[in-house]
């Protein structure tokens, strides 16, 4: 069970040119794990998430989710993409309601859950706004509510808190941790913020620079429940952070040099 990435490679062909985005990745994610991906920009983190979500085919190898080969759009995950996926022609409330409506949830239940989630991401009062009237961070929160409202058992999140300010980021991390600690969903979380990865995940995967490869997989032995406001002051945090940083920094430097 969980997610199993077996010998996956990805090469993009565009305008007759082939670029390698991801080089031979093997990775087992058990169900109930919280795994974070970190790596330099362009190393294929989003590509791997897209392949797990089934919207981009792997060039070689295969991906299994809960024992089934992912061949097309994976309806057993909730995916918060890096790009803006909130529908601009619907209001905030309708966007959050959409997955429930698609899954034929009863009207009263839908109303309750939409209101609940809009409250949790701090968007009460913006129900009737259109995405164009919101800031980038607010749109991200709409997307977050939209993916959490229908309670998928696996969450794929691509830099979900990247556009938020430091305070709000901590609040959202706390919210996500609370959900994960109570529901034990499988979470795959991409971030370029190493401290965020260590704060949240029970395992961090460091990717090498383009074309990406797994450089290091590290267990994070910080006990849950974790408080994102305080966990970074624990002494173990520093040591783990330093070890991961030593793996990550040269990869980022390589990217800069090119």
């Amino acid at each position, binding site marked *: 069970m969980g997610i199993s990435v077996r010998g996956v490679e990805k090469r993009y062909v565009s305008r007759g040119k082939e670029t390698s985005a991801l080089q031979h990745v093997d990775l087992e994610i058990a169900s109930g794990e919280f795994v974070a991906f970190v790596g330099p920009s362009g190393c294929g983190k989003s590509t791997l998430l897209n392949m797990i979500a089934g*919207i981009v085919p792997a060039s070689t190898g295969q991906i299994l989710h809960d024992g089934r080969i992912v061949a097309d759009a994976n309806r057993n995950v909730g995916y918060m*993409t890096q790009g803006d*996926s909130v529908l601009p022609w*619907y209001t905030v409330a309708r966007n959050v309601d959409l*997955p429930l409506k*698609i899954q034929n949830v009863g009207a009263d239940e839908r109303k309750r859950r939409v209101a609940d989630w809009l409250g949790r991401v701090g968007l009460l009062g913006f129900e009737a706004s*259109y995405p164009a*009237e919101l800031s980038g961070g607010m749109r991200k929160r709409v997307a977050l509510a939209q993916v959490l409202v229908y309670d998928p058992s696996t969450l794929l999140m691509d830099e979900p808190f990247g556009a938020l300010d430091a305070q709000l980021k901590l609040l959202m991390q706390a919210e996500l941790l609370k959900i994960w600690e109570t529901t034990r969903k499988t979470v795959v979380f991409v971030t370029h913020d190493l401290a965020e990865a260590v704060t949240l995940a029970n395992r961090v995967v460091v990717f090498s620079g383009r074309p990406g490869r797994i450089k290091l997989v590290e267990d994070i032995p910080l006990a849950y429940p974790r408080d994102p406001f305080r966990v970074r002051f624990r002494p173990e945090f520093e040591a783990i952070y330093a070890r991961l940083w030593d793996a990550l920094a040269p990869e980022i430097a390589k990217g800069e040099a090119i």
Partner: protein
Amino acid sequence: MSARIEEAAAIGSVATPSAAVAAWHAEQGRRRMAVLVGRILVGIAIITIWEYASGRWIEPLFISSPSRVGTRLWRWTVTGQLWNHLSITLYATAIGFAIGSSVGFVFGILFGRFKTIADVFDPYITAIYSIPKIALAPLFIIWFGIGIESKVAVSASIVFFVVFLNTYAGTRDVNQLYVHSTRIMGGSELDILRYVVVPSAASWVITGLKVSVPYALVGTVIGEFMSANRGIGFVIAQATGLFDTTSVFAGLVTLGVVGAIINVALKHVEIRLLRWKG
């Protein structure tokens, strides 16, 4: 000292925008008023010059006069003639519009979703599109007779292409990210059509509809010009044959007013439907 400066800056940064907003509103209001007054003045000027020129500079046979046209329109209205002809023209336009736009919409979506089919048919569609639809009017009269059907066919064929091409372009324009994320949250192909493709294409479709309503009217009137026994186009054609310029102008004024009213209505519909664009 520095505190006072900061305070002043703080007050300035709050007070200035609201004053600027008020000034902006006032400016907009003045401009709208000026445009409205200007429009009325231009209208009065045209009617005055026309009235004055008629019989003094130009034979009334050629340009009639506003007073005569007004009287004619009034007489048509009270005798019920105006409505008798206008209703048939509007009816044919509406049916032609409904058929042309719904068929155009369905084909636009189908072609937009299936790229290979679209590529196969592309040269033929371009070829047919290039034919002026007016040139088809005689053919439609042979096929459908001189009744309302041939007028419906002319306007439907014009509307079809405008709506088809816009729907097609709009469907191709859909952001794939929206399609993927809707599919992942469990959306069926029908859900994707309903929640993603159609709303995304809507601005293109609405533009197509807006442009094609006047075309539908033109199509109907052209059909009526060629052969008919009722309709505004028929009235104009018949009056031309009799050198009755007053009736010709009365017919043209009627068409102009109807066209303008339809356009204003469509503009409001567009604003309502595309509110999300902000």
